[in-house]
């Protein structure tokens, strides 16, 4: 009986982390800024989740770690800029509907572009290096460099500003807290996409096959499924998500430069490590935790802010050496 209780607690503990952190922050920060920071943290988290989820799913299913993932984030950001500049007519209007429409067009464009690039990337580069972790690391790092340089060739080396649409600038006030409007939009869109992902994975046949494939690639094949054909789809979905994350992040930062993907890389890796390589659920929790940590610590102890997530990662690894929801041993 006692053992059972203990085991239950162990199983559910990771889910409790996020609420615990949020609640613990309240007394430390004070109700006013707390709401602002929490929303900021959740938003940053959901944008990071976009980028990280694709990477962890690709790794879980295909055992491929794509060090060039950041490149797809950057591509998404630049495509978004290319779409939004001509749509300035819509974004400068004081119509919320037009603003959102413009952003959605940019979002879809970023997804399509990154997904298409992902298709080419999988065929040309990833195909060669299945089952060879060392070559994967090397060749994807090379590819990262090349893609980012090509972006500079196409768009030029200078940073491109990307002002937010008219109706999404500024903040709303809730009690004594101010919350940036754009953040609410990003949070909403991000959660919608995350929900769609969840429904796909849990309610569709293909999602079921993907989930099974992540757990045991051999067995799903032994049941007759051509999981290799699913790879390309999952890879494209992963890169498309990264592109969306890049677009949202770019809009959030209001500027786009060729380093935009790189800045996220270390945080994305931390999220993957925290969540457990291959676990989408772990990735979600990890992303939210990282976003919250960055914002809370940024407020409480700005000097520690940059390193705080690495410390978070170290702490979690001490507790769970393979991350919160590690996959089976052979991963």
């Amino acid at each position: 009986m006692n053992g059972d209780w203990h085991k239950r607690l162990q199983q559910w503990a990771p889910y409790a982390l996020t609420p615990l952190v949020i609640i613990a922050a309240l007394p430390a920060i004070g109700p006013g800024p707390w709401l602002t920071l929490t929303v900021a943290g959740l938003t940053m988290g959901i944008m990071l989740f976009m980028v990280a989820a694709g990477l962890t799913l690709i790794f879980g299913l295909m055992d491929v770690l794509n060090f060039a993932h950041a490149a797809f984030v950057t591509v998404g950001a630049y495509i978004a800029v290319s779409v939004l500049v001509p749509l300035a007519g819509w974004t400068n209007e004081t119509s919320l509907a037009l603003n959102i429409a413009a952003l959605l067009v940019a979002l879809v464009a970023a997804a399509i572009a990154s997904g298409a690039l992902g298709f080419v990337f999988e065929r040309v580069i990833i195909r060669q290096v299945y089952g060879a972790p060392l070559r994967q690391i090397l060749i994807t790092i090379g590819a990262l460099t090349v893609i980012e340089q090509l972006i500079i060739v196409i768009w030029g080396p200078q940073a491109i500003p990307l002002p937010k649409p008219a109706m999404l600038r500024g903040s709303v006030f809730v009690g004594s807290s101010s919350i940036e409007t754009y953040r609410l939009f990003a949070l909403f869109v991000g959660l919608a996409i995350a929900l769609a992902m969840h429904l796909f994975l849990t309610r569709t046949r293909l999602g079921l096959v993907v989930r099974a494939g992540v757990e045991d690639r051999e067995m799903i094949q032994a049941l007759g499924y051509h999981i290799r054909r699913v790879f390309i789809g999952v890879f494209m979905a992963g890169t498309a998500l990264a592109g969306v994350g890049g677009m949202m992040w770019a809009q959030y930062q209001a500027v786009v430069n060729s380093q935009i993907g790189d800045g996220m890389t270390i945080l994305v890796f931390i999220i993957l490590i925290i969540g457990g390589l291959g676990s989408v659920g772990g990735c979600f929790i990890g992303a939210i935790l990282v976003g919250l940590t960055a914002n809370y610590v940024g407020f409480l102890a700005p000097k520690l802010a940059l390193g705080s997530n690495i410390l978070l990662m170290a702490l979690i690894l001490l507790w769970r050496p393979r991350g919160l929801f590690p996959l089976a041993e052979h991963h």
Partner: protein
Amino acid sequence: MTAGQINEPMQETAGGFADTAADAPIPTLSLEGKSRSWLGWFVSDDPPGRALLNVTMLLILAVLLFAPFVFPGSKALDVAARICIFIILVASYDLMLGFTGIVSFAHTMFFGIGAYGVAIMLAKGWSGWTGVILGTLIGAVVSLVVAAVIGLLSLRVRAIFFSMITLAVAAFAQIVAEQWRTLTGGEDGLTFDVPAVLSRSFRLVPDRVMGVIINGPVITYYITFAVTLVLFLLMLRIVNSPFGLVLRAIRENEFRVEAMGYRVVAYRTLICIISAIMASMAGSLMALVLRYNGPDATLSFTLMIDILLMVVIGGMGTLYGSIVGVILVVLAQYYLKNTLEMATGSMSGQSPMAALFHPDRWLLWLGIIFILIVTFLPQGIVGRLRRKR
């Protein structure tokens, strides 16, 4: 490497990527009796191998030995010193990557630790040779401890996980260096004075020797060269020792080695430590040569990528490959820029071709070359030349 993957399990060996089991060299854990000439002892019976390589290596050795005289001028001497330091940095990385199969992104961190060791000592008042020696030692000890921790971690997690963690640790080190202004000078770094003997105004002999003034930088260069030579020969000794053979066996099949009774963790940790200490010493030398250290000089991720480039292009698991790789990449960076400048000179400024060949885009072309080499020449140049026909 788990069996039963979708493809045939690919063997990754330092000498290349054997596609079938039959091609992979079988590691032996015994040293057969080898004839030992004094030269053989010197290079631990691991000479470059092919005639072309032997000649090239000797040529490089000669050029580096007489660098101040062959390439007069402080700029060229600076490049030569960098080449020597990088040779140690890259070769020590090869110990982990090529011989043991460990991919770590924290190598620049140890480079930085060694550099900061000397920089902090000299900048904070421990001037002169005391500062240099103490700084180098402290750097080496800190590197040893950190490497030991990282090495012990390497058992508990899977290879790719480990690589990602080293990336995070390296990023952390960079952040600490940038933020801890009082100790490290923050983003601006530390500038300091070197011992009198190494300063620009010092003269070893009043007259010019073969047209060159023997001043501080020249002496610094020769110290660098000497240390590089010693450390490189030491590495040759290590990889050709029984210890080194066990490392190679671990790279091939760690489960077998563990089953044979060797503690794989211990070996891995030890090589991480050795590699880290050497990188640290290279860093200490770098600080002396630059008379400055900052996060950009030794801790940047671009540097880490350069190291990867050099070791892969030169040839993993060969040590001599590091020499080849360093020189090629350094030359490439220089000549690529010049070539690109010439190319864009003949194109109109705004055309897309001009943008593609702009000298600032040398990294694009280097990246393409890198991908091509990983794809078609995975053993690198030295690896390819050394392969048995």
